[in-house]
Every structure is written in structure tokens, then in C-alpha cells.
């Protein structure tokens, strides 16, 4: 399967491990992520001002560039949220569609389906089929899935999973052989971009989440958002720098665990950029012998 892919700025810089592990893991599943030849920042936050079209311009141009394929895959929760909500405006609001598409000089009707890799694994491949493709089962690894906000909400627009009781990450982790750790904070806000203006407030949010996951027995956490990863990871980094979490729980992108389970080259993981190094806890699987190449 070939899918047009919009990495977003963060996956091209700070979250290079998210990008590289997702590409490698997808390839191992015969899913080719074809990066759009040209793309800009999506705007990162969906503009909710109904009388302004400016925030729709960049994401609509990105969507229009994928219209021939009819599908666009993205991984970052901010990009996913922004592209999906923009697409809904373009598809349903004729006045704003006319304004924006005449401005960018593209005929685009909101026809592209925005998909997340987790959705492809669930809906196109299926978690049972994924489980059969695992070469390094992560047996015994206790993982707390963390969703954050933007993947799930607003639920009627995202249509990703139940916003109160989501299950997609749990089912994904189970298919890799992990032991899923339930904890009560999986859909709470990590502090998001408040970390820029009021870092203490954000650290308190993320610290609470990490502590709760640790109390529930998590050895690692998984996320699907570079900013969640940054906040949860950095909250534990250094108490002297305002990090407040008591625990030291490595925070991984779901795609990093997927890449390990599928036997991808460890160079795609980029664990060296994590504040809390996941390698000690994952050594049993990282040092697993590489699977024999398929005949």
C-alpha cells in the first residue's frame, strides 16, 4: 500500500525518531509512506475564529496537494487535528471553501481522507494481522498508553475513538505482546503549548500524568504526539530545572515500540534524544537477535 504522507515540521526536526520509526515500521508492513514533495507548516492549531480564513489557507493547500490520491497520512496529533478539522470546514462550509480555494487558486472540495497510522493498522491491516507480523514480541513490558487531547477531541470531528474510553492504543499494544497498564489520566491534557508561557503549570499537568502511570505500574508510556512526548519526558528530566515528576518513566512514540516489535533497524529509534533514556528498560528487546530474512 502507498499512502501520501505529511510529516509536519516537528517530525522533521525534534521528533525525528517518531518519523523514522514510523516509516521503518510501516515499510515492514508493506505500507509505503510517500512524503508530499512540497509542504508547509499546517498552522499547528486549528483556528476557531469563524470569520477568519487565514488559518485555513496553509492546511487547505496541503490537503489539496493530496487530492489526487484522496488520502493523506499524518502522525502528529496537532497536524492530524488541524488537517482534519480544516477539511471538514472545506467540505461543509461553501462560503469559506469558496473564499479559501479561490485565494489559493486550487479546486478543492474537501475530498481527502486524513488518516493516522494507528487507523491504518486497525482498519486496513487489522490488529490480529499485525500480531502475526510481530517478530520480537514485547512480552512482559508494562506500557501505559497516553492519548492526550487532540487525537480524540472534538470527538464528532475527529471520529478517531471514544473520547472518554478510547481503546485503539490498548489494542495496538496488546497486538505487540505488551502488558497494557490502565491508569486514570490517559486522556488528560499534558499542558500542551502552555509550556512555552507558563512552564510550571504545564509541568504540573505532565508530572501528575507521569506519576499516575508510574503508580499504576507502567515501565514505559506511549504517545502519538511530539508535544505530549516533550512535556511528559521533560517533566522528568531534571528537578532542578523545574521537572516535577517523581518517577522516571521513559516516554515513547507508539511507532518506536512498533518498530522494535517488527524487528526494524534500531537506528530508526533515535532514543538518544529522549530526556529519560528508554534503552535500559528495553535492552532485552533491543538486543534481541535480528530475525532471519524471509526466504
Amino acid at each position, binding site marked *: 500500500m502507498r499512502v501520501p504522507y505529511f510529516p509536519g*515540521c516537528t517530525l*522533521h*526536526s525534534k521528533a525525528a525518531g517518531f518519523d523514522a520509526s514510523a516509516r521503518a515500521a510501516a515499510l515492514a508492513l508493506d505500507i509505503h509512506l510517500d512524503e508530499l514533495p*512540497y*509542504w*508547509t*507548516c499546517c*498552522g499547528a492549531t486549528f483556528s476557531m475564529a469563524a470569520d477568519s480564513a*487565514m*488559518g485555513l*489557507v*496553509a492546511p487547505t*493547500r496541503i490537503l489539496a496537494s493530496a487530492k489526487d490520491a484522496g488520502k493523506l497520512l499524518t502522525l502528529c496529533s496537532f497536524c492530524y487535528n488541524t488537517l482534519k478539522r480544516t477539511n471538514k470546514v472545506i467540505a461543509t462550509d461553501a462560503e469559506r471553501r469558496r473564499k479559501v480555494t479561490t*485565494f*489559493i487558486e486550487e479546486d478543492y472540495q474537501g475530498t481527502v481522507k486524513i488518516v493516522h497510522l494507528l487507523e491504518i493498522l486497525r482498519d486496513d491491516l487489522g490488529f490480529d494481522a499485525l500480531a502475526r507480523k510481530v517478530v520480537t514480541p514485547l512480552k512482559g513490558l508494562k506500557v501505559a498508553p497516553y492519548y492526550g487531547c487532540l487525537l480524540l477531541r472534538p470527538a464528532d470531528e475527529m471520529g478517531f475513538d471514544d473520547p472518554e474510553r478510547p481503546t485503539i492504543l490498548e489494542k495496538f499494544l496488546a497486538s505487540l505482546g505488551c502488558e497494557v497498564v490502565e491508569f486514570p489520566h490517559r486522556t488528560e491534557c499534558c499542558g500542551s503549548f502552555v509550556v512555552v508561557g507558563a512552564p510550571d503549570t504545564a509541568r504540573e499537568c505532565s508530572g501528575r500524568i507521569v506519576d499516575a502511570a508510574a503508580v499504576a505500574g507502567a515501565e514505559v508510556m506511549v504517545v502519538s504526539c511530539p508535544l505530549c512526548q516533550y512535556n511528559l519526558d521533560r517533566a522528568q528530566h531534571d528537578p532542578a530545572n523545574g521537572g516535577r515528576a517523581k518517577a522516571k518513566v521513559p516516554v515513547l512514540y507508539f511507532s518506536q515500540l512498533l518498530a522494535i516489535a517488527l524487528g526494524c533497524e534500531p537506528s530508526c529509534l533515535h532514543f538518544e534524544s529522549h530526556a529519560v533514556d528508554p534503552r535500559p528498560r528495553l535492552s532485552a528487546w533491543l538486543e534481541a537477535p535480528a530475525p532471519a530474512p524471509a526466504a
Partner: protein
Amino acid sequence: MAAETVQFYLMGKPHAVPKGLTIQKAMEYAGFRQLRGCGCRGGFCGACGTVYRTAGDYKLKVGLACQTVVEDQMYLALIPFFPAVKANYSIEDLPPTAETIISLYPEVLRCVGCNSCRKVCPQEIEVMRYIAAAQRGDIARVANLSFDCLMCGLCASRCPAEIVQYNVAILARRLYSRHIAKPAVHLAARVEEIERGGCDADLASMMAATDADLKRMYAARVIEPEEL
């Protein structure tokens, strides 16, 4: 027979000039003496960025005055200069990263992706795309996409985010050539040759040559020899 004429408007005032002139020559024909907004006259220096509209079309069009042929009913204005911010830096000390660009030109993050810069570029450079690459620290891509920039400044004149794109681009090209591109071995060899006086004899003979000899040497010179 009188030459066919066209009428163009310079800052609102009509002027009739012979058909086929460039905007620059048409202005001179109409009596303007250009001190600024006129440099190389060959399409390379970027001093004569011009905006214009034609009858019955809302589109703003652009061109270099020295390269664009004047049309009948063309309304135009030269924009020889546009105020710009320019960071001071020592390229040796700067790592080739997104953080470098953003710390010197934080306004690049204000780009909303309107593409006005691309539409107004007389060189048809993908300005918005290189600003997107600058935001994510893809220095090589900025350098590559912006390579044909003449720094005429029209992009900056239209940017709603007040970015001075061409100064961001030249920063990226400097970062690329200083820190990313492989050093040119032939350049180092030539500098070494000059420093040890390897060109002194040739220079001395040229200094002593007659004009006729110089012309002959110039005509016979080898440009980009195959081997060094």
C-alpha cells in the same frame, strides 16, 4: 512610417513609447534618468523589481524592468528598495540548524502559508516552500530552492508576516556553504598556489602586456579548464 507606439502609465501618468522596449528603456525614452532602481541592466542584480497591472486583469504582475517588455495599457511602479531587517552574525560561529535561523529571524515562524511571496517573485522561486524548509531547519533545501534569488525584495514587500525572505535565504546559503557543503578541493589548491606565488609571473607578464596582447589573451583564455 512612424514606429508603432504603446502607452504605459508610470505612477499614474501616461507615456507613449515605441513598441518593443523594456520597461527600463521605455522609462528612459519617456525622459526619466534612473539613478536608483537601475543596476546591471542584464537581469542579474535585482535592483529594478517592478510591479504592474494590465488592463482588465486584477492580477498583480511583476518583472525586472530591464528584462520585461513594456505593454500597451501597462500600469507600473518600480520598487527599487524595500526596508528590510538584516541580522549581523559571524557565520563561523553558527550551527546550521532551525534554531539558528529562528533566533536570528524569529518572524519566519509567523508565515501563514499565503504564498504571496511566490506570486510576486520575478525569478519564480518557490519562496514559501523555502521558508517552510527554514522553519524546520532543512538548510540544504532552503539553499537549493533559493539559489536563483536576486534579492530584489519584492517578496518582503508583500509578506503579511513581515518576513524578509531573501535575508533568511542568504543566511541559509551561507550556512550551507560554510558548514554543510563539502569543501571545494580545487579552491583550496588554487589559494595555496596563489599564496606560494604561483601566479606572480603570469600577473607580472600581464601588467607588462600591451592592450592588443591583453585582448588576444582575453579572447584565447580557457574558461573552466577540464583539469587542474
